């Protein structure tokens, strides 16, 4: 029904083709190693993410995916190029408390209960805690009944889910997720994907998701970007053609399987070359 050669035609009708929210303009990142040598983590990456767009980032381990998220979050400065978020310096977004993140380590504070951890962004922003919002998100990530538990009493996957709830609690404008479902079993992961999609459809947050799961990327994202091994470069971009809201059933369609194959192939290291 759609023309695969012109990706723009696939843009879901709900999302207007609008201004750029995140602009990675020819960025590169090198780290100086202990022995004085330079490690080029990201070679050159240019990527524009539209306002309200959901982009998934795939790539082999160590190719600089987390580094890209850290650049967008202003936790790291690019060695080359420029990062612009909503037309300004990336710091401005976090200073305005409009950024939500769930990084690879959950970073829950061990002395706070789950409920207090999820409510923490309100306090850091100097706002009064919206109890209903906190409760609702804890329920959505399937942690109802664990509000008063401490992080150490939860499994790794449960902690990850708590950190996702925390990342969403302030209705951020930009959401950065780094393998947020990495520690989950397949069934819970599917459930969380469905929940995340539901929340995302309601709020239309500009989202950059790092994942190792091709299926997850295709199910959630508007666009999937594949990076090469270190030093990282963008080697493939796919516009995801499925209408929203998406049902898990689309994962059984032939079109979905074709895209999975295409992405999996792109992820495999170039043997011939």
């Amino acid at each position, binding site marked *: 029904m759609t023309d695969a050669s012109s990706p723009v035609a696939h843009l879901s009708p709900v999302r207007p083709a609008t201004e750029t929210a995140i602009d990675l303009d020819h960025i590169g990142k090198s780290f100086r190693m202990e022995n004085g040598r330079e490690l080029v983590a990201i070679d050159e990456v240019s990527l524009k993410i539209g306002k309200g767009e959901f982009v998934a980032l795939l790539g082999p381990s160590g190719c600089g995916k987390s580094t890209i998220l850290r650049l967008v979050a202003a936790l790291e400065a690019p060695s080359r190029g420029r990062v612009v978020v909503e037309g300004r310096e990336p710091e401005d977004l976090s200073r305005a408390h409009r950024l939500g993140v769930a990084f690879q380590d959950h970073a829950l*504070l061990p002395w706070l209960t789950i409920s207090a951890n999820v409510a923490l962004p309100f306090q*850091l922003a100097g706002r009064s805690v919206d109890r209903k919002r906190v409760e609702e998100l804890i329920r959505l990530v399937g942690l109802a009944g664990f509000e008063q538990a401490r992080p150490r009493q939860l499994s790794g996957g449960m902690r990850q889910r708590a950190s996702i709830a925390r990342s969403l609690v302030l209705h951020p404008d930009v959401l950065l997720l780094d393998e947020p479902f990495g520690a989950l079993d397949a069934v819970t992961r599917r459930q969380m994907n469905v929940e995340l999609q539901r929340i995302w459809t309601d709020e239309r947050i500009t989202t950059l998701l790092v994942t190792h799961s091709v299926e997850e990327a295709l199910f959630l994202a508007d666009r999937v970007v594949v990076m090469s091994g270190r030093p990282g470069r963008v080697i493939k971009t796919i516009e995801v053609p499925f209408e929203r809201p998406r049902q898990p059933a689309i994962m059984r369609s032939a079109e979905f399987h074709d895209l999975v194959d295409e992405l999996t192939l792109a992820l495999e290291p170039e043997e011939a070359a």
Partner: protein
Amino acid sequence: MRPEPATPNRPLRMLKTALSRYWGVIAVLVIWQAWVSISGVNQIVLPQPVDVFRDLVAEPGIYLRNAGQTLLLAALGLILGMLLGTVIAVLAWSSTLLSGILTPLGLVFSSVPVVALIPVIARIMGYDLKTVLAIVVIISFFPAFVFTSAGLKTLPPGSSDLFRVLGASRWTRFTRLVLPSAVPSWMIAFRLAAPPAVLSAMLAEFLMGTSGLGYLFRSAASGFQTERALGTSVVATVISVLCFTFALWAERAVLRKWN
């Protein structure tokens, strides 16, 4: 009414655990009593445990008053010393300049042996309670300073980035992340500092005070009231053990919540 089967057993069980835990103490008391009775050593050289016990029961006021004073001084000194150590650690944390001045100063200051300090401080501050208090403060300062300094730097993994991303101000970061992170180390400092606080209070009283357990021991010993001197030792031991137990309990209670 049929008594519950567990009830008659309980005192017996408690007695059993007490015996199995403290049989050493009991054995020493029994041997001591037996040896004094059999060999007939002079009372002034070594009184019987029974006499010590009799003195404790006959004059509880003297023991209580002096023990109360020692405990109060130790507690007050402990609180002030830990407060001081914490404040200085926080100041050193807040600026590299202050850290460069305060850290070596704190270390030098706290590695001077206290016994050597007592006469000096006594000469400056006078031979009274103020000096006892000052010594306990100095003793308690060191662990608080060292452990709080370390604790302020051990943040949970990823939390520092999280606070930056969430746009926390420097002050919120301090109150909601840095200070709470130091609590477990602070509790270790408390556990380590509590028994020496009591001990150094008694030592200072012994060397120059005019009241308190340390002084009671000294005046009893020099007046050949050996059973009173030993009674004082018993009270001091009990207090030390209680303080240590309390500090250990407090540390465990806090750590359970914190980690």
